[in-house]
């Protein structure tokens, strides 16, 4: 139940978005994240988008793993 799954927004109709990931599509509510637009990645929990996923942020976080290790390994 506590799972949240990332989806990409394909189209928007009022408070709803048609979303898709890996061939699975669904209609979800975007009432809690009105800022999302077509093409965005969103985190969906029990049929509702709870957060927008920032691609640049995900990339940035990945770099952080490496940078963190580089810093602590040379300490």
């Amino acid at each position, binding site marked *: *139940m*506590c*799972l*949240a799954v*990332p989806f990409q927004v394909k189209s928007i109709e009022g*408070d709803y978005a048609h979303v898709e*990931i*890996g061939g699975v599509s669904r209609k*979800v*509510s975007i*009432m*809690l994240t009105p800022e999302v637009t077509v093409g965005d990645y969103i*985190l969906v*929990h*029990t*049929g*509702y988008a*709870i*957060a*927008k*996923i*920032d*691609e640049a*942020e*995900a*990339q*940035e*976080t*990945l770099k952080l*793993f*490496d940078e*963190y*290790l580089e810093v*602590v*390994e040379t300490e």
Partner: protein
Amino acid sequence: MKFLDEYRDPALAKRLVERIHSHSLHGLRVMEFCGGHTVAIMKYGLRQLLFPHVELLSGPGCPVCVTANAEIDKAIALAKKPEVILTTFGDMLKVPGSYSSLQKTRADGGDVRIVYSAQDALEIAQGNPDKRIVFLGIGFETTAPTIAASILEAQDRGIKNYCVLSLHKLCPPVIKALLDSGETKLDGIILPGHVSAIIGSHPYEFIPRDFGIGGVIAGFEPLDILLTVEMLVAQIEKIIAECVVFYANLRETT
């Protein structure tokens, strides 16, 4: 799926595990509060990888498991009413109450239906205007707003036969009760990512302030969890305790 392999990169995971093992500290007790983290820890064998330097303990963070018998009994009593269709997430079906479960109630003729989302319950309400549709509102902070949204939606759509039996619970008071009891000695806590996507990091600040241990808000991939453990161990080594956000979605909002 994009980034999935990267967040499970074995080479980086190995470096993180080696780093954790390189600390001089042994037998540190770190609790993952959230059941979602427990699943990831089991799936990737992280508990064995980190032992004996760090002992990972599973916390009470599963809203299904912490539902009291009396609450299940209430749901069962409602499901037995002929005018009621009780809708619920599938997780709740087998959970025992004092004397029965929703699954048994359904076998005995009660109208209990599994839904994926509160939205599905709204559809059932619209399609059955002569019935009262009760949605079993189980969940922590992640789920509660979605169910609140379904109530607003019912109002907007003029659906008058939809109601929610709210059994929601909050995470920070549960963590506080656990630490207050003093029964479990902990050196750090891995805090739930999805819950924090809703509530931010502020409600956890009492953990370092009042109990002197660190907490890191983490995502659910193995690298997220390993780095979180490393950050907690590093805090203990430096004798500092703070609340840190290591969850990409949150950095902008907190």
